[in-house]
Structures are given as C-alpha cells and as structure tokens.
C-alpha cells in the first residue's frame, strides 16, 4: 500500500498542480505533496527490517505485464533519497520566481512519480514505462526553463535519451520474446536472461548498458551532461544529477548485471576502464572549468565513475559501497547545487574569476559550502567517506586481474578532487569582498541547507545508521 502511495501522491499532486493559477498556492501545494511523499517514504523505509514490501496488480494481462512493485533495500533507499531531495529543493527555492509555476511544479512532481516507479518496478515493461515517465517531464523542464542555450542543450539531451530508450526497448522486446510464457515479470526475466546463449546475452547487455550508461553517464556517453547541468534551472539540475544519475546505476544493478550473468568478463573490464577514464577525465576537466556549474558537472562524472567501477568489481564491499554512495552522493550534490544557486543568484554570475569574498559577506553560506565541499571530497566524518572507502576496498578486493591498478588510479581521483574543489572554494569564498550587498542565507535556504549539513555529519560520524539496513 505504501509503495502505491509513493507513486500516486506525486502523480496526483503533480497533475493537480497544473490547475493552480496563483504562485504561492502552487508552491504550497507542491511542498505539501512532496512532504507527504517524504512521510510515506520514511515509513516504508523504517519497516524495511521486517520484510520486503511488494505489491501486485493486473495491468496488461494480454502482454504478460503486471503492475508489480518491490521495495528492496536499495529501492527503498533510492525512493527515500528521491523523497528527501524534492522538498529540500522546494523549500530552498521558495523565494525564487519561476515562470509558469504551475506547469513547472507539475512537471517536477510527475518526474518524481516516474523516478519512484523506476526504483520500485518489479516488471520490465513497468520499469520501462516509468523510465520514460521520468524522462519526459525532465525533458520539458530542461527545454522550457533555464539558460539561453537551453533549447540546443535539451535537444542534445533528448537525442541521447531517445537513443538510450530506443536501444533498451529493442533489448526489452527481444528478451520478452524469449521468455517461455511471454512475461515481463522480474523473476521470469532473470531466468530467461541467464538461459540465453552467451552471445545473445552479450548483445542485450550492450543494448541495456548503453541506455543506462547514458543516464549515469559513463565516459564517453557523457557529453550531454555538462551543458545540460549548466543550462537547466537548479531544481532540474538536481533532479538530473542527484536522482536521474541513480536511475542508470540502479538500472545496472537490478536490470542488467543480474539478468545477464554470463557475459564475457571482458565486458566488465572494459566498463571498469571506461569508468576509470571517467574519473580521471572528469577530474582533470573539472580543474580547468571556469563556470561553477560545469565544474560540479565534471566532478559528478568522476564520482559516478567510481560507483560504476564499484558495481563491476563484483565484491560485497564494493556493492555496499555503491548503495551507500548512491544515497550520500545524492544528498551532498543536492547541497552543492543549492549553494551554487544561492551564489549565482547573489553574484549574478557563475564565472569563477568574477566571484570571491563570500566568506566575509556571508559566513554561514561559506560554512555550508566548505562542509559540503569536504563531504564531496570524502573527508572522514562526513557522509562522503564511508561509501568511497568501501568502494576502494571493494575494487581492491575484486578478482579482476587489474584490481590494484584500478584502485590506485581511481584513488588519484581523491587528489584531483581536492584540487578542483578547493580551487572552487578559494575562488568563491576567499579573497577580498567583491560586493557589499551579498546577503547571507534566508530562512528557507537555511532550513534546507542545515538539514543537509546535519545528514552529512550524522551519516559521517555514525554511518552504521545507513549500513545496518544493507
């Protein structure tokens, strides 16, 4: 029941949002909806230790597709993250004027509903359905609101997404045809996938992987990312980078890796190498960016690269590291985008060379920036540490013949990460105050940011709070 609510509340509140005419009303409505979802997500997450919740309804019986949901630990953790991120964003952006707010908030909530479905679906067709349901609103959000190049950017995003969906759909249909009784049910899909000839598994693996790889994104499928992050409004950027990235990772962990278990190990090796290139490439590119949003975008490429490596390291520690890091990365990067947005709105620029002196003008915001920065570079006692530690350990323990080289090269990311993040802090926060009219955080911004800081520290000092459910 709770699982259904996780889908229905955002869907209904989202659709209803379109009907609102007054800005404060739609903002309040959207926030109430998001908070209600959060309550449900928290409740379902709390019950996780007793049993894995499931729900089954008839959907398209003629096709063998059921409306079946399953709240595994990883799924509920991701729904919890999704449920946390939306209200934080709504609160932090409370004072920001957005054109056509009813449409904006409606689409946002629809995307949330889609995301929930992606994480909960236990039926391949249903998964695909939600995958598209999550993407379409985001595509509109990226196209209608944002920077001046948003049309071009969203089109690029669309092309990529479309390509991915296309390949996944092809793979999905092929897989469906192979099932003995024509079913999209997860267990049937698992059995069917494993029974296919190795060559077919390989082909399907590639089809699905490209679809998921675009979302993560993995090098070299990432070129939509930096410009999309740069051009979209911050709430959309956050949906893209804190949540949609997780769709790709989640997809691999639930619908790719277990479904095609017998593919050539060489595939894993190649993916790990691509992910490793992503870490180093993303980090190096982040160093030379002059726009903060692009800097954060490339840092995300690096962070996700490590998680991808963790998935294909195939060890218990790495898998636990991926799940932990998926959650913590979502929290941290949400905080980072919110602070970046506050800075941009105050300085009216994102150009690092034109920023500076935030520490003198807005000390609270600076503290937030610094804490989030150190969480992002995985300082111990912040939430960023444990996931990364388990990932490194898991990669190190991998049976991949290159495991030590992989870990050490991926470890270069922690050095490069310190370089670009501290460069950013220096350019934004330190130096002489450039403008006297920089206001510190407003009340609504404080609420969001302080919640994020508390999560960063609590999960950093006592990570077992999260780890014990794994």
């Amino acid at each position, binding site marked *: 029941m709770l699982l259904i609510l996780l889908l229905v509340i955002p869907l209904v509140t989202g659709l209803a949002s379109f009907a609102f005419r007054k800005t404060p009303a739609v903002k309040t409505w959207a926030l109430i909806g998001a908070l209600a979802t959060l309550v449900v997500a928290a409740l379902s997450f709390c019950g996780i230790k007793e049993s894995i919740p499931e729900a089954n309804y008839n959907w398209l019986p003629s096709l063998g597709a059921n409306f079946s949901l399953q709240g595994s630990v990883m799924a509920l953790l991701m729904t919890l993250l999704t449920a946390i991120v939306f209200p934080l964003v709504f609160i932090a952006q409370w004072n920001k004027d957005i054109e056509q707010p009813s449409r904006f908030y409606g689409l946002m909530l629809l995307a949330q509903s889609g995301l929930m479905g992606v994480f909960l679906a236990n039926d391949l067709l249903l998964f695909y359905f939600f995958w598209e349901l999550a993407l*379409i609103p985001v595509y509109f959000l990226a196209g209608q609101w944002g920077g001046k190049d948003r049309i071009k950017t969203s*089109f690029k995003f669309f*092309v990529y997404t479309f390509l991915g969906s296309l390949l996944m759909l092809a793979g999905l249909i092929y897989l469906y045809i192979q099932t003995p009784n024509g079913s999209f049910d997860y267990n049937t899909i698992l059995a069917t996938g494993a029974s296919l000839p190795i060559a077919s598994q390989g082909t399907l693996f590639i089809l699905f992987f490209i679809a998921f790889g675009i979302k993560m994104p993995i090098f070299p499928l990432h070129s939509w990312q930096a410009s999309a992050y740069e051009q979209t409004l911050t709430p959309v950027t956050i949906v893209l980078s804190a949540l949609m990235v997780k769709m790709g990772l989640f997809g691999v962990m639930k619908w790719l890796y277990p479904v095609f278990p017998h593919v050539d190990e060489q595939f894993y090796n190649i993916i790990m190498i691509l992910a490793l290139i992503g870490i180093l490439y993303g980090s190096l590119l982040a160093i030379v960016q002059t726009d903060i949003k692009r800097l954060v975008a490339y840092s995300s490429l690096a962070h996700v690269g490590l998680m991808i490596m963790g998935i294909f390291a195939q060890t*218990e520690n790495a898998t636990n590291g991926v799940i932990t890091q998926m959650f913590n990365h979502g929290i941290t990067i949400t905080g980072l985008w919110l602070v970046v947005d506050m800075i941009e709105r105050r300085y009216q620029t994102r150009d690092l060379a034109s920023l500076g002196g935030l520490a*003198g003008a807005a000390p609270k915001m600076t503290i937030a920036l610094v804490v989030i920065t150190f969480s992002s570079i995985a300082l*111990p006692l912040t939430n960023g540490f444990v996931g990364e530690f388990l990932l490194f350990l898991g990669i190190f323990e991998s049976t991949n013949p290159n495991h030590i080289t992989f870990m050490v090269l991926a470890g270069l990311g922690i050095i490069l990460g310190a370089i670009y993040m*501290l*460069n950013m802090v220096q350019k934004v926060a*330190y130096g002489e105050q450039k403008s006297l009219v920089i206001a510190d955080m407003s009340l609504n911004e404080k609420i969001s940011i302080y919640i994020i800081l508390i999560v960063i520290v609590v999960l950093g000092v*006592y990570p077992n709070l999260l780890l014990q459910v794994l």
Partner: protein
Amino acid sequence: MTQLVYLIPLFPLIGFLLNGLFWKSMPKKLAGIIGSVAILASFCVALGIFFEVKSGGVPDKGIVHIFNFISVGKFSVPFAFLVDQLSAMFLLIITGIGFLIHLYSTAYMHDDAGYTKYFAYLNLFVFFMLLLVLGANYVVMFIGWEGVGLASYLLIGFWYKNKEYTNASKKAFIMNRIGDLGFLVGLMLTIYNFGTASYHEFFGQLSGGIGTMTDTGYMIGTGMTNAIAICFFIGAMGKSAQIPLYTWLPDAMAGPTPVSALIHAATMVTAGIYMIARSNALFNLAPMAQNMIAIIGLATVLLAASIAIKQNDIKKVLAYSTVSQLGYMFLALGVGAYVGSLFHVMTHAFFKALLFLGSGSVIHAMSGEQDMRKMGGLGKHMPITKFTFLIGCLAIAGLPGFSGFFSKDEILAAAYAKNPMYYYFALLGALMTAYYMFRAYFYTFSGSFRGTEAQKHHLHESPAAMTIPLIILAVLSVIGGYVGLPEVIGEHLNVGHLLNEYLSPVVQNFDVHHLSHSTEWTLMAVATALIVIMIIIAKAVTKKEQFKEATGLAKVLENKWYIDEVYDFLIVKPMAWIAKILNNVIELKGIDAGVNGVGQLVQWGSTRLKNLQSGQVGSYLFAMVIGIIIIFAIGIFGLFYA
C-alpha cells in the same frame, strides 16, 4: 581511568562546537577561556591515564570500544581507542603543549577579528590529533589523519583575504592528500591480506614473522610487508613533510604563529613518526622500506638544513629546521631506533614549540615583521623572549645538558652503529642546524636594530600569557632530555633510560647495535666540539654579513634549490596543459562536436515535424510517440528477421 579516555577528545570537541556554533554571540574573552580550558581538562585526564599506564594497570589490553563505525557484510571496523604507553605519551605532548599554545594564543590573537573562529579551529585540530593517536585501528587513525589535514587547511588559510595564504592552505591539503592516497593503499593492502585494520590483530598475525600465514590465508613475505610499509611511509612523507612531499610545510607558515608552533612543529607533523613507530612490528619485517626511510630521512635532513642556512624570514628558518629535524626522526626509524625517534619527537616538541612561540613574540613586538634583516638588538627590549629563545637554540643545536643533546645523540649513535656514513651525514646536518639557528638568534637579538623608527618605538616584551608558556617550554627544553640518559652516562648515576623502559612494552628498538663506551664518548665529544665551533662561526658571520644580493650557491639555497619551480615545471604545468587539451580538443571539439553532428542530422531530418525546438509540448510528445512506434517496428522486424 582508562574507560574515561573518550573524555580526552570530547573536551576539545565540545570547545569546537561551542565556539563554532555560537561564534557570533560568543564574548571574546569567553572564547579563549573555553578553548584553553577544554585542552587543560583533556590534559588532566591524560595525566591520570599516563600514570595508570605507567603503573601497568590498564584493563582489556587498553582497548576502549566506543561504537561500531562501519559494520556491513563481513567487514567491520569499530570506533575504538587504544590506551597504551605510546598513545599516552602522545596524549601528554598534544594536550600539554596544546594547552600552553592555547594560552599563548589568547594574547597573541587578541586583536584579531576572527578570535572565536581561531579557537574553534584550534580545538578542532586537537580533537582530530587526539583521534589520530588514540585510534585502535588504522581506520580511526586515518580519520584523525585527514581531520588534522582539514584543521591545518583551515588554520593556514585563516587570514583568507590574502591569496598567498589561501594558496598555501590549498597546497598543504593537496600535498597531504597525495600522501593520504599512499596511506589508503597501504590500508587496503593490510585489510586485503590480513582481514583486519586493528593494530592488535594485525601485529598479532605479524608476530610469527616472514613465512607464516595470515588469517586470510596469505603467506607473509617481504614483498607484502615492504609494499604495505612503503605505502604507509608515503602517507608519512606527506604529513611529516619528507622529500618529496615537504614543500607545503614552509608555505604553511602563512598561518598564525601559534598554529605553526602547535601543528606545523610540535604535533601534527610528527603523525608520520607516530604511525611508523606504532607499526614497528610491520617495519621490522620490511628491510627495504626501512632503508628507504633512513635514506629519505637523511636526505631531508641535509636538504632542509641547507635551505635554512640562507633564509631571512625567521619563520622560514624554523620551518625548514622542522623539516630537517623530522628527517632525523625518520633516520632513527629507518635504522630501527624507534625509542630514539620518539625521544626526539618529545624534545623537539618542547624546543621547537618554544622557538616558534619565541619567534611569535618577536613578530608580535615587531608588528608583524618577520624579516630578520629588519630586526637586530631585540634582546634589550625583550629579555625573557631572548633568554628562552637562546635555550631553544642551545637545545636544538644539541649542546650537552640540553634536551636536544640526548635525543640527537641517541639517533646519531644508532646511525653510526648501522652505517658510519649515515652518521657523518647526520653530523653534517647537526652542524648546519647549529649554524642556522644561531645565525637566526644573533640576527634577531644581537647587534643593533635595523627596522623603522616606528617599529623601534613599539618594541616591548610580550604579556605574561605569552611569556609564561615560553618559560615553561624553556624549562622542559632543558630537563626533557633526562628521561633518556645514554648508557654511558646513566650507568654512573645508576639511572637507566627511563623512556626506553617506559615504552618497552609497545615499542622496542630493532637491530640497534651497542657501541663501545669509548666510541660513544668520542662521537659525543667530536660532535659537541664541532657544534661549538659552528656557533662561533655564526656569531662572526652575523656580525659582518652585509645583506647584499646572494649569488652562486647562496642564491640557490635562498631560493630553496628551486624545488617549487621544478615541481611546477614537471607536474603542475603539464597537468594543467593536459587538462586544457582534454577540455578544448577532446571534449568540446571531439566528443561534443560528434554528438552535435548527429543531433543536427536528426534535427535536419525532423524539420517536417514543425519546429521541433519550439518548446511546444505537443510536437515533442508527437516526436516521442512516433519514435517509440518506429522502435517497436524495428524491434519486431528484427525479431522476424532473427
């Protein structure tokens, strides 16, 4: 008492939280009191624990479990503390000297706008440093290890408006991160091969020696032990400023001077020595790593001392001196003289903190001036500073009777026993030390004043909050050496090497040959005579040296062997260049242009669908639906085809 060990880091943490959270409303006076009292309270608990450890009354092998830090799957790391002789010794140094420096800071930082912030950061540093030495496993050590890096970063860049300072803080953190990666890889190797990060379990498995099996079924070989040991040592290179990762430390002098005294001289930079001494069971099985440590330590001694000879900034002299003295400690670790190394950690903490605080007192009097060329004759105006600074110089130079003499003598003797060449180079370093320290002393306190009239008018002795710590540290710099009397002296007085006896349950010297008494007396006498000669030379040189443009070797030394420039040329510039190429050529012209090309193609093909880019919901959805139908068609066609 041992069960109360958690109080030791807790007090500074509370101090940090109080000053950190209420920085806006905190009265200035109270901030200093909270900061200092927190450390004093920790010191008191540490004293109690020290005596309990000394009497041998520590329960449960000294392990105090706080909570489960990581516990997932088969992997688990407790947040646990280890109370033993080694950690108790460091607790006393950190909280003892830490308190004196907090006290000193209440006066030194008095006029600074960031007073409350300063004490918050300083308490935060002490908190992490205490975690570092208290951890019962390498993960807790790593938490402290990175945490002190954070505190150091915050304090070096304390005056954040100055770009040079924030550059220095960034450099310190990044260079430390290079070392941290080494530590992390070593830690992974340890967990992978031994299945644990806990000291007791790890050292227990090592106790069988080379050729025995670990709990996870790997055979312990020298390849494995050397690899882990070298990785750990790379971590130590970063934190303890050894070649090639030392260049951040001199730059770290950008921070307030008490910070330099506490973090960049007395405590944090000795973390690497603590780590290796703690892991002595590992290093004793890693001969290659030991040789590497000895050689790098010795090279650092000489390189840093040679640079210190030609520095004109009083804090830079002390910074390079610190690097050089840390080199001695590594030399001692490398030759297996763990106790000698720890002995030097202790005495160095006393006299180097003293020297830094003394320089701070001078800088305070000179209104911020650090250039010794503008000082001179300050002794008349600040007698306490002068006298205590002199004691510090005598101690670091190693004059008999002062603490530095005993610890340095122990290291030199162990080096001689291992390899006489080590001894000669180490002695050369000691001579340079005596020279550059007394050069600094005479420049600062003797002769006539070379600064401006305004500065001259302002000259004064520092207030009691600053001179009292100086006096206490001066006393310790004299008597601190008597806990480690060399055998040749101790046997006449019927006193053993107290520190050695105290530390023997956890740290034992490895493979250190004893010298005959006559050799040892000779070494001592030669060293002492040469050191006295160096002091006389320093006196003569400072009397007549003109401050003219340096040339030749002097210029190279003044410019620190151009190491920063070399790093810039070899690493920083190429990396930036590669990153730019990747960005401009591969990313923007390669991948992105390729994708845009595909995009334009699609766009061109879809113009018939009326302004695909118009932002019209309808046309987008239409495109989407058409697309999906096409895919279905292709998919089904493919199936028939198959």
